[in-house]
């Protein structure tokens, strides 16, 4: 990875200011980015304490003013986790229909859930409208799994799915992040429920950890970490079940996982159903094949990890 002079200049200016304002303990450095984007710098600062967001924004504003003439594009975001989810009742505005002036239907009628998110000491409430269409999709999924459906357990299972939906939303970083302080209302509709209900939260976390670890971006430090560890342990990357256990812990926390509940690959893998275990191994193997095809230099650098 090559760090350009302007990247270095902006990085140093920001780090110095974070240090002087005693903000470094709240900075998630490994999830933050400083990228030269051709004449300018893109900065993503990730914060583990929501009450410090404004102070971080002030640091970026001050550095922008200090580096006049240099284009600095920035995102400052907090890491949020889901603390609780509760059922409220039928959406007070009869769902989404009144917002958009469209006829009432299963796509637009909704029930409301409320979730509390926290980022360090800061908490915020968000509202999630689950459309009736989403409930139907969930019931279909439960019937497919031959699970019993009653009014009471449907609410409980939906709360779990709302939690998984929020974890998914909060797991995205970069320009795709969700700011729950500014956009408090979410809709969990039929297609989203189908996506969320397809796999368990543990599967999604493991899938995401695999994707981030095997990402071929130049600035991905997780990949050499994994390959070095596999080489030292004499485990081949082609032995998916064993290799999965060596996914770096960093891939399971911070900005990679918004609402992290699992700390490592072993914990996540144990929570998978038998079918999901097969699926996740297939996913891992296909990402490894892609890596071998497109990154021969990495394969040559870590021959032990790639031996058959």
């Amino acid at each position, binding site marked *: 990875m090559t760090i350009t002079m302007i990247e270095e200049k902006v990085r140093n200016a920001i780090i110095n200011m974070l240090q002087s304002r005693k903000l470094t303990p709240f900075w998630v450095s490994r999830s933050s980015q400083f990228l030269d984007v051709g004449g300018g710098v893109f900065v993503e600062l990730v914060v583990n304490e929501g009450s410090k967001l404004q102070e971080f924004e002030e640091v970026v504003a001050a550095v922008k003013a200090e580096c006049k003439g240099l284009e600095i594009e920035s995102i400052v975001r907090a890491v949020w986790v889901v603390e609780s989810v509760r059922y409220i009742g039928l959406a007070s505005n009869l769902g989404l229909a009144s917002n958009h002036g469209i006829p009432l239907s299963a796509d637009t009628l909704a029930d409301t859930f409320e979730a509390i998110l926290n980022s360090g000491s800061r908490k915020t409430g968000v509202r999630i409208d689950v459309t009736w269409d989403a409930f139907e999709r969930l019931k279909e999924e439960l019937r497919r799994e031959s699970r019993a459906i009653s009014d009471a357990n449907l609410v409980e299972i939906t709360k779990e799915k709302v939690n998984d939906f929020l974890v998914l*939303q909060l797991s995205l970083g970069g320009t*795709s992040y969700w700011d729950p302080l500014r956009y408090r209302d979410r809709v969990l509709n039929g297609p989203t429920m189908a996506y969320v209900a397809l796999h368990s939260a543990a599967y999604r976390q493991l899938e995401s950890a695999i994707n981030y670890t095997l990402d071929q971006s130049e600035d991905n430090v997780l990949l050499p970490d994994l390959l070095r560890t596999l080489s030292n342990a004499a485990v081949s990357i082609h032995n998916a079940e064993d290799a999965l256990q060596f996914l770096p812990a960093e891939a399971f926390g911070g900005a990679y996982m918004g609402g992290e509940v699992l700390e490592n690959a072993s914990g996540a893998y144990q929570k998978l159903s038998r079918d999901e275990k097969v699926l996740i191994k297939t996913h891992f193997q296909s990402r490894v094949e892609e890596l071998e095809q497109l990154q021969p230099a990495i394969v040559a650098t870590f021959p032990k990890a790639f031996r058959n």
Partner: protein
Amino acid sequence: LPSKHAEVNGYFRLAEGFMAAATVNDHSMEIEVRRALSAGYYALLHVSNAWLAMRNVPLSRRGHHTALRDEIMKRRTPEAAAALERFFLIRKDADYRPGMFRSKPYFSDIVKFRLRAMDMLEEMRVEFEQYASDVRKQLAAGSI
């Protein structure tokens, strides 16, 4: 030079047109999602431009993405300016960065890309309405 009414109306018409085009459905493919995100940003750019024109901000101070954001920061809030910057970056990713879909955070998962894009478009609409309601009111009252 166009009258103030014609200018505000012109940008607002563009803004509404772009917003109407900024849609993603359950079958949208990568390029359609990218195009919608880009249109959503331009809707926001034009509506905020109309809003600033309504307040007699000269074109030189709103004719460029960065200058326009600076004016929004002064005349609305730093949060509104930060939201504009974020959507500008999303639009840059959507228009120019091939890795936006193939690399983090979507890793070629088209369903995840679509679903998050739908939410981002909804977030853009939330911002859009904050300007649009003012502009609509003034245009309807004939006070421009």
